[in-house]
């Protein structure tokens, strides 16, 4: 078993590879070693799941119907609105 483990990425290396895999297609020999590691390692499997969940959640912030867009309760202040109103008025006067 230990000789197999030596051929595989460590968890630390896996955490970087799992991130990279979200941005580009990795070479097949790396994907194969990741696959084997994930079959044996619950913690990396969980980490992979968490990254995927995070991505789905962040993309949902773009959906105007989701609560995600309300992430920040802040809105434009009245002063800011007034300033913008004046800027718009002066632009077409």
């Amino acid at each position, binding site marked *: 078993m230990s000789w197999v483990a030596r051929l595989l990425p*460590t*968890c*630390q*290396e896996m*955490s*970087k590879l799992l*991130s*990279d895999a*979200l*941005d*580009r297609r990795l070479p097949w020999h790396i994907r194969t070693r990741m696959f084997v590691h994930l079959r044996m390692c619950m*913690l*990396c499997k*969980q*980490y992979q*799941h*968490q*990254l995927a*969940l*995070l*991505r*789905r*959640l*962040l*993309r*949902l*912030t*773009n959906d*105007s119907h*989701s*609560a*995600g*867009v*309300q*992430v*920040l309760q*802040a*809105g*434009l202040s009245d002063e*800011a*609105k007034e*300033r*913008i*109103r004046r*800027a*718009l*008025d002066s*632009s*077409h*006067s």
Partner: protein
Amino acid sequence: MDEVVGPDSHRWIDEHGDYLYRFALVRVYDSNVAEDLVQDTFLAALQGTRRESGPTAERRWMVGIIKHKIVDHFRRMAKEPLRDDSRSDVPSADDDFLVDGHWKPAAADSRGWPDKPDTLLEQKQFWDALACCLDKLPPRTAQVFTLREMDEMDTEEICRLLHLTQTNLGVMLYRARKQLRNCLSTRYFGRTEEAVQS
């Protein structure tokens, strides 16, 4: 002229102002900049003409404009000599691992993470925690992370836009994801009692 254009643009401020402001704020993390971006968006909208009609089309049109404004803003910032977060050694991303490369037991704690995002969507507390965690990312890292994850820009485009190498970008995204995941684990999932106090 004022009677025709004025009221319409004033209506925009009330109908889309807050939305666009929040849209910009989660991306630029600076309220002054976000306000300016909203103003620039309305000014650009005054110049342009919308192809579709209806209130949702108007919103989509404005979002399209502000997205460009935000990218322009990032491009301007990229020209300024900003600290390159990928080389900063502030919170080392390797603190989560033992010397042999295994997860530290505490770092791997994943209690409370759900299988699907559905349960989280309507929970304001979750989004607050997420906003707070995003806020803690180093500025440059937050910028690339936002472009990649919220705007779904591909990595080559981000590198070109911000003058980064693929390697640097990969490191920054890696750290951003790990830091966010750790922050959410602490602030929201599993350890809620502690999160309330912090």
